[in-house]
């Protein structure tokens, strides 16, 4: 077996393969190299890291459309600078999020990054943003930490912290006469933080959470748990689910005959962007959120008609969050002008921004989380109709944030 010639041959072969592979790989790399920046009043490079495929693809698309709508309304500019987009599909996969964020920041040299929907992915982005100092605007993910213990001067959010929409619901449910409530959610950050905030609000008002049911994210086989709800017979149920899970939970709940017998409450995600699929099963469900489809203010009306004209679809909260992300960025850039390096001034101007958002007045806390109204809505005729203001200018406690 030991044959020097054949060893040499093997080696030659190995080396050739290796070289071939290297060449192929290098070609791949070369294609991916960022184009050299052209010196013409350098365009603002906006990295859009959003889910363009997977469960949250629709949300990503609406956020992007909302952002684009704002930029188009400013003739393709923000703060007087031309905008160049670098799109990147995060697929809602936390495991590749750091890598993807590095692509935008180190490879493509984005001036600012907008993203994303999934909390786990957003957390990885926050981490890279903290290390690299790149401005990051989160247009959806609600993880409390992003504007809590991990808050930073360069990190902003135009959506909500998980605490925000859930906490005011506690008092609403108590005031509607319910004392013993059951909660149900997925066992992951968003679900647990929202249920936690609801429980906090509800127990502070004097109610009692009798049982907290959970199942792994994103499982949707609810039948066993719904049977448990029927056995325990609480006064009401508070649920957090979103997307496909929300559709299935609401329809299962109705099909099991619980609808109308045990009232169902939740944060807005239970019925937002899902009403078409939920149909009549969702009618009457009351939820709290920082937006309602029919908010009666001029900004909202203008936004909804412009969005409809641009995309042919009805605008929703995700589009609003994207739209406001652009507005926030504009507020910062107007203050600093062409000077992209003046980051401190940029952040100060963004932190002080007062935005006339479709959701109502929008300002920012020292932790850079929105201060906004939380609305109680009810599903009527396939819309999340405004009922009342559940909390005015609600601000997140920003626990653990050193800037707050």
């Amino acid at each position, binding site marked *: 077996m030991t044959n020097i010639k054949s060893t040499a041959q093997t080696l030659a072969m190995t080396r*050739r393969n290796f070289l071939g*592979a290297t060449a192929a790989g290098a070609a791949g790399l070369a294609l991916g190299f960022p184009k050299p920046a052209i010196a013409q009043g350098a365009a603002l490079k906006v990295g859009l890291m959003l889910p*363009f495929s997977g469960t949250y693809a629709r949300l990503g698309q609406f956020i992007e459309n909302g952002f684009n709508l704002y930029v188009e309304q400013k003739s393709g500019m923000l703060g007087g600078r031309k905008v160049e987009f670098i799109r990147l599909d995060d697929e809602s996969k936390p495991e590749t999020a*750091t*890598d993807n964020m590095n692509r935008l920041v180190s490879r493509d040299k984005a001036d600012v990054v907008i993203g994303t929907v999934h909390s786990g992915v957003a957390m990885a982005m926050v981490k890279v943003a903290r290390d690299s100092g790149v401005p990051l605007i989160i247009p959806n993910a609600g993880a409390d930490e992003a504007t809590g213990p991990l808050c930073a001067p360069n990190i902003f959010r135009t959506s909500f912290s998980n605490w925000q929409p859930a906490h005011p619901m506690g008092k609403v449910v108590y005031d509607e006469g319910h004392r013993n409530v059951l909660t149900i959610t997925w066992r992951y950050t968003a679900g647990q933080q929202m249920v936690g905030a609801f429980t906090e609000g509800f127990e502070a008002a004097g109610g009692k959470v009798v049982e907290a049911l959970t199942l792994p994210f994103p499982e949707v086989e609810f039948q066993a748990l719904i049977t448990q709800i029927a056995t325990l017979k609480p006064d009401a149920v508070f649920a957090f689910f979103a997307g496909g899970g929300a559709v299935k939970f609401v329809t299962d709940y109705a099909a099991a005959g619980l609808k109308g017998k045990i009232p169902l409450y939740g944060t807005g995600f239970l019925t937002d962007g899902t009403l078409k699929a939920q149909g009549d099963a969702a009618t009457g469900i009351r939820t709290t959120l920082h937006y309602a489809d029919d908010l009666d203010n001029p900004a909202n009306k203008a936004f909804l008609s412009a969005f409809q004209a641009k995309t042919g679809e009805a605008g929703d909260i995700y589009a609003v969050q994207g739209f406001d992300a652009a507005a926030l960025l504009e507020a910062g850039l107007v203050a600093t002008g062409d000077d992209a390096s003046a980051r401190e001034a940029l952040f100060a101007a963004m932190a002080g921004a007062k935005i006339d958002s479709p959701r109502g007045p929008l300002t920012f806390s020292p932790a850079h989380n929105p201060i906004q109204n939380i609305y109680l809505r009810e599903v009527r005729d396939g819309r999340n109709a405004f009922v009342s203001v559940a909390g005015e200018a609600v601000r997140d406690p920003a626990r653990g944030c050193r800037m707050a």
Partner: protein
Amino acid sequence: MQPLSSRTHLALLAAVVAAAMLPALVPDYYVQFAAKVLILGTLAMALNLAVGFGGLVSLCHAAFFGLAGYALVLLAPEYDAPSLLLTLPLAVAIAAAAALVIGLLSLRTRGVYFIMVTLAFGEMLFFLFHDTPFGGGSDGLFLYVKPVLSVGETILVDLDNPVTFYLAALAAAAGTWWLIRHLLSTPFGDALTAARDNERRALALGIPVIRVRLIAFVLSAALAGLAGYLSAAQFGFVAPQMLGWHLSATALVMVVLGGTRRVAGPLAGALVVTGLEEGLKYFIDDWKLVYGLIIIALVLVAPGGLQDLARLAGLGRRAGTPALNLKEANNVG
């Protein structure tokens, strides 16, 4: 396989030295990219020890990869740098221990059964981290400070430095190559490949087939663990998907693309797959469609991987046997 000659060692050394020059030549992002390729290449080479040389098509190697990654994050103190000397051996040992248990159970089966059983065990570990709170659940866990190797107060190796990290990944890949290459030139390597080629004959020759396979499986898992440890250290984040079978399948693509009969083949496969993903993602929204078609074409047109491609392109001489023609020890039934 022939024993390692001094020429082989020299070539390996030359390749490593050349690769070590990379950070001086390309921007930071590509150093990081190269480190990622080396880590995935290590995983693929490790997997190929089981697949190509042991004839064991495992769909749970991502679980070993992820397990070691989780081990690092769970063992690390929250705000201090974890010690490389302490956490690395432990993480690798945990991956190996898991492989020992899974191997003992799954090596009782063969062929299709083995694939499905490893798939199921891999998913079991996935759900262990996905459904229970101790590993952060489906949200994953962060590693805030990267591992260091220090003597007393002096830090010798700090994985936080991208160049140091790249060199560490390079060392891991080169070490893995050397170890597998060396192993295959020992009687153990002969026994392993003999059992792959014809199990009955191997048994008749008195080779303890199950034990040989188990050792190869555990070793291959330990090396996959080494890769997983580095991957967790590189991105400072672990999520259950790191253990999922999609990564196992991707690693298999790397193995087949690079060629199952070459120790270094899967490393080349990792480079091509990762480069392809990088390039496709940049240009095509529906890149997965193209990627999927490429995989299908690979299986149908060039089962020998890059060697076949080279031959199809008229480069090089006729490559020997298509590397994919593994005879899995006794088909089911």
